[in-house]
C-alpha cells in the first residue's frame, strides 16, 4: 500500500511540475492544483497511513495522527485561496496585456478578433 501511495504522490508531483513548466497561465494553474494535491498527500503521509482509525474519540481502536490532518485541512483551504488569486491574476494579465503567456514571449498569433465580443472591452 505504501509503495503505491508514494508512487501516486511522486506521479502527481511530476505531472504538476511538468504543467507548471508550460508557458500559459491556465495550464500553470492546473499544474499548481495537481502539485497542491501532491503536497497535501505528502504532508498527510507524515502522519503515516492508518486504516479504520479516524481521530474521533471512541470511534476506533487506534487513532491516526490528527496533527498532520489539521495542518492539511487548513492547507487545502489556503491552497484554494492562492489558486484563486493566481487565476484572477492570470485573467487580469490577459485583460491588461492581451495574452496569457508567462514565458516572456510575445504571442505568436494574436486571437482572431472575430471570436471576440467587445461588449465589455
Amino acid at each position, binding site marked *: 500500500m505504501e509503495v503505491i501511495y508514494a508512487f501516486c504522490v511522486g506521479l502527481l508531483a511530476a505531472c504538476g511540475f511538468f504543467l507548471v513548466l508550460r508557458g500559459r497561465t491556465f495550464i500553470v494553474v492546473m499544474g499548481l492544483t495537481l502539485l497542491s494535491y501532491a503536497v497535501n498527500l505528502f504532508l498527510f503521509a507524515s502522519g503515516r497511513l492508518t*486504516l*479504520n482509525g*479516524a481521530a*474521533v474519540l471512541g*470511534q*476506533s481502536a487506534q487513532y491516526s495522527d490528527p496533527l498532520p490532518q489539521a495542518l492539511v485541512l487548513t492547507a487545502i483551504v489556503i491552497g484554494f485561496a492562492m489558486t484563486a488569486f493566481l487565476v484572477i491574476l492570470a485573467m487580469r494579465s490577459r485583460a491588461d496585456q492581451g495574452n496569457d503567456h508567462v514565458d516572456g514571449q510575445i504571442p505568436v498569433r494574436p486571437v482572431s478578433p472575430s471570436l471576440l465580443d467587445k461588449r465589455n472591452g
Partner: protein
Amino acid sequence: MLNIAITIAAVLMCLSLMLNLWRLFKGPSRPDRILALDTMYINSIALIILFGIFSRTTLYFEAALLIAMLGFVSTAAMCKYILRGDLIE
C-alpha cells in the same frame, strides 16, 4: 455473508469505475465525458458506503452525502459551461 456481498459489490463498482474512465478517455463528445464524470461521482458514493459498511463505521457517510450534493453542482456547472460558456450571468 455480508462480507461476500460487499466484496462482490466492490468488484462491480470498481469495474464500473474503470468503464467510466474508459468513457472519459473515449468521449467522443463533451457531454459524454461530463456524464462519465457524473457517473464516477455516483459510483464513488457507492464505494464509500460499501467501505463504511465493511468497516462497521458511519464516519464516512457524510462524505457520501457531500459527493451526492456537490457532484451535482459540479456537473451542473460543467453543463452550463458548454451551453453558455459563462457560468454566472
